[in-house]
């Protein structure tokens, strides 16, 4: 029997006002694999990712039911602090969101907030993260320029590096390549694949080809319902649900 995965979603339902966006979703997210969530736009993929990160807390009129466990901690337990949960997850959003500060400060932002003040150690950390992201050679002379001057592709890699600088356990990507050119998309995809040896990765996409390229595990979300999920090979070769089949053949999109 396999050991229990770190991240488990149990009977999660989310609604905005009267609109139920996620309906009773339960999913075990395998450790150190890339789990790709696919589904047509508006089916609740972003909502699902945000609920993992407790980013829905501040949304007006949202109602969240069910449980999400990281290890054995229920992240919606009222005693749990949202910042503590969020630190465990690195979020990569649809459009690269660089903070309004320098390249250096973008990386240093998280660690500083969590109490790292020592300048030398910050420098070491920034260099390490940028090198790991394959960005160092491109930006080492521009560390103190505003990050917004980097190309979009560089910005997205910077965002990924920034998320990793706070030492998360889980990486969440919400259509992380949708704003990028094909080449930058490949770089980001390869980064994600490399990262799965150390992290649990969840990526949302509506590009089936991307899902085929990077997924170990797939989950298909349709109209707020988790229709089907399973290992990638099986999912693509042998979809069980008629809706999954329709989606894979492009009949619904």
């Amino acid at each position: 029997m396999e050991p229990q995965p770190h991240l488990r979603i149990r009977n999660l339902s989310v609604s905005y006002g009267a609109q139920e966006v996620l309906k009773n979703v339960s999913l075990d997210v395998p450790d150190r694999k890339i789990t790709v969530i696919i589904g047509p736009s508006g089916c609740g993929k972003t909502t699902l990712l945000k609920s993992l990160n407790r980013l829905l807390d501040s949304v007006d009129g949202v109602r969240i039911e069910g449980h999400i466990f990281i290890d054995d901690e229920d992240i919606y337990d009222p005693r749990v602090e949202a910042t503590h949960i969020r630190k465990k997850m690195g979020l990569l959003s649809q459009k690269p969101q660089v903070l309004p500060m320098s390249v250096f400060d973008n990386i240093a932002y998280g660690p500083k907030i969590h109490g790292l003040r020592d300048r030398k150690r910050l420098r070491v950390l920034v260099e390490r993260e940028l090198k790991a992201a394959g960005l160092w050679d491109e930006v080492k002379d521009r560390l103190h320029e505003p990050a917004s001057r980097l190309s979009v592709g560089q910005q997205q890699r910077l965002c990924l590096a920034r998320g990793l600088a706070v030492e998360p356990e889980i990486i969440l990507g919400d259509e992380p390549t949708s704003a990028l050119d094909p080449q930058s998309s490949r770089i980001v995809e390869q980064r994600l694949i490399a990262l799965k040896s150390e992290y649990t990765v969840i990526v949302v996409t509506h590009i089936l080809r991307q899902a085929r390229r990077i997924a170990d595990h797939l989950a298909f979300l349709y109209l707020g319902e988790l229709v089907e999920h399973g290992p990638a090979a099986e999912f693509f070769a042998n979809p069980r649900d008629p809706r999954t089949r329709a989606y894979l053949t492009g009949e619904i999109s």
Partner: protein
Amino acid sequence: MRRLKDLLARRAMFLLTAVPGLLVFLMLFGLLLRSRAILAFHSFTGLLFGSGWHPLKGEFGFLPFLAGTLWVTLVAMIIAVPVSLLTAVYLSEYAPRSVRELTKPVVDLLAGIPSVVYGVWGVLMVVPFVGKVLAPLFGVYSSGYSVLSGGIVLAIMVFPTIIHVALEVFSAVPHELRETSLSLGATTWETVKHVVLRKGLQGIFAAVVLGLSRAFGETMAVLMVVGNVARLPKSVFDPAYPLPALIANNYGEMMSIPRYDSALMFAALVLLLVVLVFNLGARFILVKIERKVE
């Protein structure tokens, strides 16, 4: 035919656009022309920085009035800036949407209240408060008609301007940017401080300048509570006499005194210049922000 219409429309609109700009120039020019009489007797700087105001003896020093304007404005901004920025931060980042939607029109309503009403309220509430409560607390005597009263009333009048513009600025900061900061484990306050305020820095600056330029020119309410004594104020509990109050109180009254009329024109000129510079600065920055936010 259509092209002719287009041409005409373009010309007409250009003219309409040019009129306000032209008006300001005309005003400047007119005021300068009418100030010539006094500028012939005194130097520009002598007028600005002279501290004696004895029109009967032909002595026209505007320093007490300039100082009065600056003091009252400064006190108002010291009160208004932090309070209204914190209010805006609360409304945009912490308050539930219902509170925000309810407060916005109230804030805008405050901006529409005629300034006499603020003045009356100031006389009824602020002046006694400053004279009977605050001044004794600091161990000084004050009638209550003072720089501080003017500053408080003015601050309250400036709140809506700053809050309104700051709210616009905050709402231009993308929601995803806040989420980015939060998802790195930052608290809401850290996010506000390092991301929202920073991203909106120029806009906030413009909000403050807009408030400031309103404060500079505001006449009625301030006039009613500052005491109007043409002497350099030594503390915030002293009365003052800001430039707009000088003009409003005396225009058409003391015209028999030689060059008094011209001196008031000069005061108006100075005031116009000050407000103009502040407004141009604010516009310039706002345009820059619009470009940045797109």
